[in-house]
């Protein structure tokens, strides 16, 4: 094995930025930016409807033993993954939490999909739907806790696989 070489490439990014001035990212600009992103929440609620509709349709069509099961699971996983990825950016942290749980559950499914798998994925979907319908942003308060409590069985199964992180 040849000796590793250490290379210090030119820091092109640094050469293209300057410090200060009216266009600089100062705390005020960052605060404005966060406020603008927060205002995108209405758009988020439209976007997430599309994902939820996709989840609903695919889950309704899931049937243990059907030949298209894996394809549908893949679509469901992608939708849950997307929901997980954007919820927290708009203050809907419960959507990120439930999306993450659903992804973990699907990742840990082994063997043929059972009706229980379908039911537990449906439970995740319904919980997401409850969060959006109830506009449960942040931690969702008491209602948010109830939604998460209702997902206890999903969480237990994920934890039992040892991949709950």
């Amino acid at each position, binding site marked *: 094995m040849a000796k590793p070489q250490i290379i210090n490439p030119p820091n092109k990014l640094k050469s*293209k930025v300057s410090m200060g001035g009216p266009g*600089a990212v100062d705390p005020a600009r960052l605060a404005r930016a966060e406020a603008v992103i927060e205002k995108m929440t209405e758009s988020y609620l439209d976007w997430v409807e599309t994902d939820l509709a996709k989840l609903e349709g695919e889950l309704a069509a899931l049937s243990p033993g059907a030949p298209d099961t894996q394809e549908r699971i893949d679509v469901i996983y992608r939708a849950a993954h997307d929901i997980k*990825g954007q919820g927290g950016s708009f203050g809907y942290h419960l959507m*990120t939490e439930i999306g993450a749980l659903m992804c973990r559950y699907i990742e840990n499914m082994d063997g043929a999909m059972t009706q229980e798998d379908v039911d537990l994925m449906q439970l995740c979907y319904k919980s997401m739907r409850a969060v959006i319908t109830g506009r449960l942003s942040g931690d969702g308060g008491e209602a948010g806790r109830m939604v998460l409590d209702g997902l206890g069985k999903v969480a237990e199964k994920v934890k039992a696989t040892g991949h709950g992180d």
Partner: protein
Amino acid sequence: MADYDLSNVKVLVAEDYAPMRKLLGQVLYELNVADFQMVANGQETIDFLQEYEADLLLVDNLMSPIDGTELTRMIRAGKTPAERHVPIIMVSGETSKELIVGARDAGVNEFLAKPISTQMVYQRFMNIIENPRAFVQTDDFYGPDRRRRPMRYPGLDRRREAYTYQTPQQAKAGG
């Protein structure tokens, strides 16, 4: 926190999920990045880089064809039109240890877990501007030094002494 003017920086975003592209676009706009472009997967990134000299890439992982990890590996191997050392920030909803280690071993500079915020994106930009990592070239790796900081070790630093790096596979095999 340093106040950088990013208006001359060119950023290419590779993200297959349209709402996330909109969010990232808005974040870059708010950070005053005047020139940013969006593509939807790794293949489009490679095609786009024929004409667009990006200063930095923001890449999702879960994309097809060519996911973010593979795209990074190809860029570091010099198999794309991009400069091999172009900074790459992976923006991913998947945060498993396997993915993060895989992305690091492919040669990403920074990892950003979704959900994102403007501040988080800016912080990653700052890391690359202020703390650029040296690149390491071995037989089977080209990318940012995977050791974030020099570790204080009271004994003989065998890495410094012999400069023999091990791949994770070799280390696992006890080689």
